[in-house]
């Protein structure tokens, strides 16, 4: 099937065409939100952070916010700051400029004299940006332009048994066609990291991956938690999971059987195509934010219980293999592959169906989360607020 997307002046390819109202910090959230509600075709990105940050959290936040603004699903961005935050709106703009030359405007609430005056200007700027964005036409693109992020949340036994293996097959097909697939969630790799390390294309990469998992584990140990104890959980064991490697394998299957081309830091843009691994937390939304900041245009998200997550600028395709969830959470589920468990469809057939749905969504079909207007946002953290 032919693929169509938006070619950006920075060379990237988007599958959506959003004008993003981006608050530099929590203090600019409400002004940004009210601005966005006044302009159809614009989208507000909630930002819980942006201030009181440790050095490491400053970098994580800056990389993530600038990456999301640079994501090719975003046509243009309006940054709104309060003026005194740690993530200065102008510094954020500079960081975005390093990544892209897309349309961008900056407004500082304190400088403009409060919310209403800021909104007046921001609305005007956003309106003309939306008009400009609407003049963009979808053009033929290649599947190799696509970066897919894979995620799982609210998992149950059907996730590791069917939903994740099906996504793994989709990931393998995409990689074979020259695209990029991101495997995320470092804590879920603990116990199966040796298997992933064995799939890395070079020894250096294997070491990088093992180091990434070890660092994550050490952070937990410093907080007095040992992720290897108590895992699998009593609930997992009751559900049929016996060992930690079995539990972790159920998750990393989303990356299929492809060799790993690159290991990325949180929110880092991949330099290679193929299967890449990103160091993200187990919290679904923060993990998605990292992949969106890396330029993923679409996310496939498996769920056993029916996690309703949506991420404004990136369609999140929700997959379940739990028939009850597929039925009860129909409003949120895009793809139900529970018939693989019932035996009426094979994994490969389900994967082909999901791949086709992904292609349709690349071409503009909206996901359930997009239809509902779900706009979750979370950024990974290292240290508590300063």
């Amino acid at each position: 099937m032919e693929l169509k997307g938006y070619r950006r002046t920075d060379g990237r390819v988007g599958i959506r065409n959003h004008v993003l109202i981006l608050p530099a910090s929590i203090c600019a959230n409400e002004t940004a939100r009210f601005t966005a509600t006044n302009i159809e075709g614009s989208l507000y990105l909630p930002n819980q952070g942006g201030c009181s940050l440790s050095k490491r959290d400053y970098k994580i936040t800056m990389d993530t916010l600038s990456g999301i603004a640079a994501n090719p699903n975003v046509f243009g961005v309006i940054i709104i700051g309060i003026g005194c935050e740690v993530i200065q709106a102008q510094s954020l703009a500079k960081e975005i400029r390093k990544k892209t030359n897309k349309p961008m405007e900056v407004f500082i609430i304190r400088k403009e004299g409060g919310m209403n005056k800021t909104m007046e200007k921001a609305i005007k700027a956003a309106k003309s940006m939306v008009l400009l964005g609407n003049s963009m036409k979808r053009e033929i693109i290649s599947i190799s332009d696509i970066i897919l992020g894979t995620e799982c949340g609210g998992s149950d036994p059907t996730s590791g048994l069917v939903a994740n293996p099906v996504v793994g097959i989709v990931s393998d097909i995409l990689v074979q066609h020259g695209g990029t697939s991101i495997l995320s969630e470092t804590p879920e790799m603990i116990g199966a990291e040796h298997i992933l390390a064995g799939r890395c294309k070079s020894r250096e990469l294997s070491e990088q991956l093992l180091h990434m998992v070890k660092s994550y584990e050490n952070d937990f140990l410093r907080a007095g938690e040992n992720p290897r104890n108590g895992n699998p959980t009593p609930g997992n064991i009751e559900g049929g999971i016996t060992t930690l490697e079995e539990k972790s394998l159920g998750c990393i299957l989303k990356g299929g059987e492809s060799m790993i081309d690159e290991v990325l830091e949180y929110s880092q843009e991949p330099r290679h195509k193929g299967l890449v691994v990103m160091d993200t937390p187990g919290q679904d939304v923060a993990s998605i934010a990292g992949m969106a900041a890396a330029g993923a245009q679409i996310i496939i998200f498996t769920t056993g219980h029916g996690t309703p997550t949506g991420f404004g600028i990136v369609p999140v395709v929700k997959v379940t293999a739990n028939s009850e969830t597929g039925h009860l959470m129909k409003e949120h589920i895009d793809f139900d592959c529970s018939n693989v468990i019932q035996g009426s469809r094979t994994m490969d057939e389900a994967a082909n169906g999901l791949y086709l749905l992904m292609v349709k969504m690349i071409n503009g079909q909206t996901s359930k989360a997009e239809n509902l207007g779900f706009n979750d946002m979370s950024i990974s953290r290292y240290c508590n607020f300063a």
Partner: protein
Amino acid sequence: MKRSGIKIHYNDNVVTATDDIYADEIVICNDGNLNIIAMESIPIYHKIASKPIKKGERIIKYGEVIGIALNNISVGSWVHIHNLRSMSLYKEVES
């Protein structure tokens, strides 16, 4: 009664039950050729040995090693915490 199971990878020596299974029931697997007679009750989403596994041998699911057999396991037996141990924990026991 006939019940079903899923073999995820062709190298696996266990299949996952997709129904609650009782002793003597026939488990029909997704690849069509594999039928197993259950030796005991196996809860839904738990594992059943699809090949004879000797004590100390690797147990394979998803085409990867999920642990080591603690005793001999015959085809149709339930595979869980009583007869399967994580690789790292097994190594600790051995050393």
